[in-house]
């Protein structure tokens, strides 16, 4: 084998694909789409923040309106304090940031003529005089079970109403407790929820754990899954093109079929790695602690997993092995048949092996060290997909990792050997569609 020949083919395969606009569109579309799905809604909601001025008429006689004013002011203060404290990692509930609306409260006591007072408040809302957006009437029944009245220009602002309802409920609850002779502060202390702080034991894995770690592992799994399928199929298309246009006849007068196949596999593998690199790079940037915290995308109490160099290397190697395990198969299929239609019937067999790990995804996630997960991750065809999943969830023991590498490497070597022999014969065969038996025989021609 002449390495320079392999390199010339590799260069062509790589540059032709990377120079293609479609490659960049697809490569950038995935992270853009992913960000759009995850970030955009949060971003949109945070941008739709409103600030309402509300006149509250307190007919409860228990100072509920004043308490509400205090409550609203307290949450606003907490929020600005949190904003100043970012981007430090937050612990516990950070109510301020999830609030969609702030309120400025003006309190009134019921006038002698309530109807006149109501008419006047309606007029203020209608004219927008004094920038009043809404007014509320809190009757004495509010402390029992009656609703509070909310009069506004717009009554479909459910998100705003929801926030207001939350604040009001909190205040009314405390008033009720006080009236029942219970100290609200004491009550709060005693009924506090217990949070689960899920922390991964150091040295057992790379991720920060919890829900985010899980999402991260699944995202990783599907990125690899997509890459292996897409680029494996690209190998098949490329081989079919060379066969169909008879370019192959020109090429093999200059280089051997083996050099051609290896150049093609390595070139396309490198394209896949480039794409994966861009994707992982995006993940790396988007999940950098600073960025996530400032943009406030994370729910309270969750920290983002971070990629380590060791993990990146493992992913890259597993991708290369996975790519070769499947792409050699696709190269042999492409070489054996005359057109895409013929080839696709057989190539779907390859898809089955890629889909199988996706079907056991849930059980692997639930217990990454179960016998089934370990066995799957050691089976060469599944290793490239299951092992990264395990690594992201919980670092497997070194011996398992090493064994997986040895087995997959042996499998890939075998695949290269057998597929290159099929390729060598098939690539120059034209005419009728070969049977699987014939293709198998090609592998043993001398």
């Amino acid at each position, binding site marked *: 084998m002449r390495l320079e020949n392999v390199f010339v083919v590799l260069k062509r395969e790589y540059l032709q694909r990377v120079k293609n606009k479609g490659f960049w569109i697809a490569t950038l579309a995935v992270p853009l789409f992913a960000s759009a799905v995850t970030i955009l809604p949060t971003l949109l909601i945070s941008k739709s923040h409103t600030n309402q001025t509300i006149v509250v008429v307190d007919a409860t006689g228990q100072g509920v309106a004043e308490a509400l004013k205090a409550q609203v002011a307290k949450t606003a203060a907490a929020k600005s304090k949190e904003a100043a404290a970012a981007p430090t990692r937050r612990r516990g509930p950070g109510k301020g940031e999830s609030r969609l609306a702030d309120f400025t409260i003006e309190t009134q006591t019921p006038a002698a003529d309530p109807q006149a007072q109501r008419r006047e408040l309606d007029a203020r809302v209608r004219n927008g005089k004094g920038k009043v957006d809404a007014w509320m009437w809190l009757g004495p029944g509010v402390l029992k079970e009656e609703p509070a009245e909310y009069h506004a220009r717009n009554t479909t602002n459910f998100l705003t109403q929801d926030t207001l309802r939350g604040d009001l409920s909190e205040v009314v609850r405390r008033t009720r407790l006080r009236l029942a002779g219970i100290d609200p502060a004491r009550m709060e202390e005693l009924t506090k929820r217990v949070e689960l702080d899920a922390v991964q034991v150091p040295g057992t894995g790379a991720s920060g754990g919890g829900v985010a770690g899980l999402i991260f592992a699944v995202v990783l799994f599907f990125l690899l899954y997509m890459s292996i399928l897409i680029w494996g199929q690209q190998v098949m298309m490329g081989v079919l093109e060379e066969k169909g*246009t008879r370019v192959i*006849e*020109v090429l093999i007068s*200059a280089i051997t079929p083996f050099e051609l196949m290896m150049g093609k596999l390595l070139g396309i593998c490198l394209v896949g790695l480039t794409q994966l690199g861009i994707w992982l790079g995006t993940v790396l940037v988007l999940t950098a602690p600073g960025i996530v915290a400032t943009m406030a995308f994370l729910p309270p109490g969750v920290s983002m997993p971070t990629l380590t160099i060791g993990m990146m290397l493992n992913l890259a190697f597993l991708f290369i092995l996975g790519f070769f395990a499947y792409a050699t198969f696709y190269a042999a299929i492409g070489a054996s048949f005359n057109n895409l239609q013929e080839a696709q019937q057989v190539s779907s067999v390859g898809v089955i092996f890629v889909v199988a790990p996706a079907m056991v995804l849930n059980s692997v996630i639930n217990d990454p060290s179960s016998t089934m997960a370990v066995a799957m991750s050691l089976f060469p065809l599944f290793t490239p997909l299951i092992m990264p999943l395990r690594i992201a969830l919980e670092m497997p023991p070194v011996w398992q990792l090493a064994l997986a590498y040895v087995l997959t490497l042996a499998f890939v070597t075998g695949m290269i050997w057998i597929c290159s022999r099929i390729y060598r014969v098939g690539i120059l065969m034209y005419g009728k569609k070969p049977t699987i038996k014939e293709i198998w025989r090609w592998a043993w021609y001398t």
Partner: protein
Amino acid sequence: MNPILEVRDVRKSYGDFVAVGGVSMSVPPGSIFGLLGPNGAGKTSTIRMIMNITAPDTGEIHVFGHPRKPDDLRRIGYLPEERGLYRKMTVTDQLLFLGEIRGLKRAALGPEIDRWLGRVDLTKWAKSKIEELSKGMQQKVQLIGTVLHKPDLLILDEPFSGLDPINQELFRELLQDYRSQGKSVVLSTHGMELAERMCDQICLISNGKTVLDGDLKEIKRRLGGNSFRVVAEGDLDRLRTMPEVEHATVQDGEVKLMLRPDADGAETLRQMIGFLKVREFRSEEPELEQIFMKAVRDAA
């Protein structure tokens, strides 16, 4: 002089179908060699065996004076019958790639490619993708790809298909240039007129077998001793029924007549005068087409 390419009784069957049933040919250096034959005669099959794309069942192939080795193929430029180009690549990238797989350096290739593109009038298409080019233009790109590494032997399978007369002429000039450098060209075609204009040597195959082989002029001399041109009035078609006539082509009151080798021209003329008003009767060199038809018929 040692032949640059020698094919010795090569045979190839696919199951019961005999694609090549014994082809022999010998290509001297500095010649344009025509591999001729009707469709399905086995021309492409023979070429594919020369290029080691398929292996012959029996027979030998010698190039450059020795049995063919894989490395010899790098000294041969091959143009397959169908377009052997990547459709999505630009003309320049494609040619750079074809040069590089033959071990040429990019820096040296650039100017050479520009020079060739200029010569075949494709300079302004250099950055276009192959799929944007017409068939004839693709054929020119492919020919450049074939000669770029300055091979000692060119093997062109139907190089003129899809070319207009102007580009056929251009190809002819390029190939003659090539020959003048002492290199050889083997081309297959079923176009006899073209072959006649271009080739010094021919090998005629029919039904997978060589039926004629050698120097074109010599073949014509050998087989054309009994060819005549007749201008006459009357029932010209009746000429075909005469026992002495091997082959007759009638066109616009003019007949190209090929007699049996043992037939006597003067005697034939005497009989002809019996039913035709003969204006002209002249001995003439036969056209390759007539030789071809006769040879194919004889072989059958």
